[in-house]
């Protein structure tokens, strides 16, 4: 009986959501733009250890191997993150990575991306990726759920190791939180 009800319910839900999706398809936000917004939100909900920077110094969001996300981030240029204007930049090597607050490794990062990560040491940089192969070595990894929704997993141990404090609000919204 319950099963029948569930089937009926899911059928109606499917029908209505299919209609809604058709209606929303035109104005649907592109995935990379959404990822850029997510990066901005992560920055908002994370506390960095004080570095003694002046407030007009930028908050650097570095992108490696994700051109589309980088371009999408340009739309958020200048927005305040903890009082500092957001600035996005593409980096190519481990030297440039030192100035980053947040490092996004795109799907194209590949092996070079892993090398970049290895060279970070314990620098206070929030690492984010959407490359499943790098997921186990970054603090926040973007995933797409079964419901085609963009979600994220958090490895709390990695964040703590870099002296980053993630807001409980962020943790609550995470798809998975791995404490170790």
């Amino acid at each position: 009986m319950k099963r029948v009800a569930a089937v009926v319910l899911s059928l109606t839900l499917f029908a209505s959501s299919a209609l809604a999706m058709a209606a929303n398809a035109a104005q649907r936000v592109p995935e990379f733009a959404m990822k850029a917004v997510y990066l901005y939100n992560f920055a908002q909900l994370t506390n960095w250890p004080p570095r003694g920077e002046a407030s007009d110094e930028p908050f650097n969001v570095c992108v490696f191997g994700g051109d589309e996300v980088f371009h999408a981030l340009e739309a958020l240029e200048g927005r305040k993150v903890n009082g500092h204007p957001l600035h996005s930049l593409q980096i190519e090597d481990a030297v440039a990575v030192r100035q980053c607050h947040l490092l996004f490794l795109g799907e194209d990062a590949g092996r070079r991306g892993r090398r970049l990560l290895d060279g970070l040491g314990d620098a206070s940089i929030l690492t984010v990726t959407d490359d499943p192969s790098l997921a186990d070595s970054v603090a926040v990894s973007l995933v797409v759920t079964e419901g085609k929704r963009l979600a994220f997993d958090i490895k709390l141990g990695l964040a703590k190791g870099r002296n980053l404090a993630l807001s409980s609000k962020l943790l609550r919204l995470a798809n998975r939180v791995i404490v170790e």
Partner: protein
Amino acid sequence: MSGWALWFRHRPIPAKLKLITHLLVLLALLPIISINIGYEYLSVRDSMRSEAEVRANIIRENVAAATAFGDRESADETLSSLRASPNVIQAVLLLRDGTPLARFSVGGEPERWMEIPNRTDQTILGWNRILVARSVYLKESRVGWLMIETSMKPLHDRLLLYALVSLVAVLISIALTSMLSRRLTHGITTPLSDLMDLARHVTDHQDYSPPLRVSDSQDEIGGLSRAFDTMLAAIRERDARLSQIAYCDSLTGLANRHAFMERLQQSVDQARRSGKSCCLMFLDLDHFKFVNDTYGHAVGDALLREVARRLKNVMRNDDFIGRLGGDEFAIIIENAADGAGLAIASGKLVRSLSEPMRIEECDVQIGASIGFGRCPDDADKVSELMRMADVAMYAAKKGGKNRFRAYSPDLEQDERRS
């Protein structure tokens, strides 16, 4: 005068007093109650308002991150915590571009919103709803828009309860003042209605005797009561004076004709009833006209007074003497059974009146002719008796004056003959 004023005028005093006290109670309580209800309304409304605002602020804090990430599930979850607040009707969370992210409504179905405000933080107070609209911020950046609508039903329930309690309080006060005013009214109206009854009694029974009860209180009612008493006393005094004027001959102090006739009727009635006899004696002065014409009216009047004095001297105390007019006097002698006694009395009278009198430096001598008839021996009607006494008196006058005659039927024949 308006209808109400007229109506009020014709109410009895207790009803008037009762109405006035009730009106006073209402007048005193009405401002207090309205001020209390107004104050209660404002303070409860303000506390509900701030409660709703605090609630909205908490929700917007909790929902901020989910809004930023567009996380519908989490936002729904946060909004559904509103279920714990019983007065929340509905809530909606909009993204920056206006698309709804999450909704909550207590009945499941979304209701019509009280109004859709522009996108500024505000609280709108309606008659039965409060709408709180707040921006949702993640850090400094605005990520969404939250509206929560709360019912004002508890406020109305509370006001209703308050009004009911006030009504009960008013009823109790009216009942208490009713009891109090009944006692008060009793103290005021009972003496008044007593006085009214007394006035009716006086009017109906012409009874001017002093009332048994006179209120001894020092207030207006006591004063009215005493004034009424004084008025009755004045009426009694006037009546006494009037009856003296009506029954007394002012010159001699003897009974006048009217009083004498009343008394004669009584005596005749009594004689007829009890079988005891009475005698009517007519007495006419001889030469009075001469004295009056010679010495003047003043001497004539003094003479009449002297005659009255002598008559009183000679007669017994229970004989009734009256002056019928001019120089005519009459006497009723009760229990006059035997003619001999009457003859003696008549002789005494004739002698006494023929003795000279000194009146205002004048020596005057007159005489008297007396005739009498007896009841019931001669007649048992007043008119008959009067006529017989008159006949007897004329017979005495004719017989040479200064003498007396008892009535006998022969006298009538003599008169007819002459």
